[in-house]
């Protein structure tokens, strides 16, 4: 089995009395890992340790199997990074910024074509020759991602890559990241946008108060952190008797009537959708959709933070 692309092995960073860690997790090749946590929880500090920008006070961090401090060039080769605040010179054009980035990573041939490729990928090719100072915040954010993508790195480290983007920009980058991971690339991204993480990440890690509270898939996080699940039903012609029957389905904890249908709370780990569907159809109702509740990862995240705070106290 190949070694993980990213590995935190008991990494600790102390800032006086404040302490981040020990953090223990790894990210395998091809994963899109969502690094979650509230502001000040230690996400950016972990990212900075990973990139060799901050020295761990204890433990180890490895990037591509190498120590990013002692073997900085080896560890960072083939790694693209987009910081939380896009540190881009505003007097340059995106093409100039990317040409500089290409030079910094030692890319000498086919630079023009590579710049066009990444500008296309992040959806700002039409702004390639405008001054960065004239671009919107979202465009600058996309440019920051573009400079991380230059040179086709095998690993992307993205600190809040979706921040400041409009829905179209968010969707564009989401597709780009998914395509990138399908091509074998590995992504570690921190984010506060749970809906994006839920729809894009194959795994997540939740850090709070410097401690890693959870590592697993988004589905596992929802299952582990919430006492109950949620099912959204959209249906027409449901009688009171049908609703009552749904209440009696095994694992159903509560049923709430909402415009256009029902919200059904079910016991943790129970798959009640087939039985609920059956009850609606047999009761003469017209089932339009039945799916898991929305924003479940967000709910799990909030619940996990409550538990994490309780643990800390």
């Amino acid at each position, binding site marked *: 089995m190949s070694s993980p692309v990213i590995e935190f092995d008991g990494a600790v960073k102390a800032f006086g009395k404040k302490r981040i860690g020990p953090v223990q997790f790894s990210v395998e090749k091809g994963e899109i890992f969502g690094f979650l946590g509230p502001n000040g929880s230690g996400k950016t500090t972990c990212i*900075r340790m990973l*990139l*060799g*920008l*901050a*020295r761990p006070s204890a433990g180890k961090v490895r990037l591509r199997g190498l120590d990013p401090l002692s073997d*900085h*060039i*080896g560890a*960072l*080769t083939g*790694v693209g*990074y987009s*910081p939380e*605040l896009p*540190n881009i*010179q505003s007097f340059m054009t995106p093409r100039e910024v990317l040409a500089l*980035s290409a030079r*910094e*990573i*030692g890319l000498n041939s086919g630079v023009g074509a590579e710049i066009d490729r990444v500008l296309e990928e992040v959806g700002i090719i039409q702004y390639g020759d405008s001054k960065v100072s004239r671009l919107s915040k979202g465009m600058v954010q996309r440019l920051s991602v573009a*400079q991380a993508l230059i040179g086709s790195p095998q690993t992307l*480290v993205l600190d809040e890559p979706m921040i400041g983007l409009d829905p179209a920009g968010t969707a564009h980058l989401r597709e780009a990241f998914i395509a990138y991971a399908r091509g074998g690339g590995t992504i570690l991204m921190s984010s506060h946008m749970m809906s994006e993480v839920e729809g894009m990440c194959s795994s997540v890690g939740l850090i709070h108060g410097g401690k890693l509270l959870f590592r697993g898939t988004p589905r596992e996080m929802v299952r582990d952190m919430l006492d109950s699940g949620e099912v959204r039903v959209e249906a027409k012609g449901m009688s009171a008797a049908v609703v009552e029957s749904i209440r009696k389905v095994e694992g159903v904890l509560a049923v709430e009537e909402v415009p256009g249908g029902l919200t059904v709370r079910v016991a943790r780990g129970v798959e009640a959708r087939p039985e609920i569907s059956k009850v609606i159809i047999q009761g003469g109702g017209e089932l339009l959709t039945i799916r898991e509740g929305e924003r479940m990862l967000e709910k799990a995240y909030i619940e996990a933070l409550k538990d994490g705070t309780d643990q800390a106290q």
Partner: protein
Amino acid sequence: MVAFIILLDTVPYYILSTSGTTLIPQQVYPYLWVAVVIAPFPLFMQFVAIMIAAGAMSEEYESGTAELLLAKPVGRGEFFAGKFLGGYVLLGLLILLNALMSVVAASLTFGAQSGLGTIPGVVLVEVYSSALFFSVAFMLGELVRRSSLAYILSSALIVASQIIGTYLSIAYELTGNGFYESIHVYLPTTVAGSLPPQYEQSLLPSAAGRLFELILGPTMGIPSEASAAVMVGLYLATATAVSFAYFRWADVSRRVS
């Protein structure tokens, strides 16, 4: 900075040539280019050095470009050397500009100039001497990582050294105590400012000597050329070693938002 140097190199010659002063003997006219090469060096060019060096590293931290660049496969040594040498080369070019502009302005206002063959030497000596305040300001920029604070501290060092030097001169004049003179020798402004005039004076004919008296005034507690060169080297080596050690050890500062 370039505009200021051009003004500094032209206005004094224009004023001197149009004011009809008798202060300058005619025999030193062919060496007047030396005046504005040497005169601003002890103070003005040191400020130019710290203006370049104090922000060389700290502005990279403040703007976040250090973070972005050092998250790439770029060695820290390479980054450090690039920032140091880049700034130092710029300073060297400004010193060269200062010398060339002085020659042009002096030639246009006081006629043909002599001793121009010494220009490369004096420029190199000035570049070397300016390494003292350049490296100290570079070190302060790296240690405090805020450009404004680094400028203030570096400027304070120049001003304090200059003021202490003045007090030591007065104390020496009043008491004749050699102790004050011996301290004066080691002050950074004394060390950095004494080497180029001594070097240039040794190369020009005695007719130009009066010019040095006019420019520099009475001098006391000045190290020999060799001592000054060694002391510049010591300041340079110490400041560079401290800043590099700190740069290697410390985390890369985050952008100031």
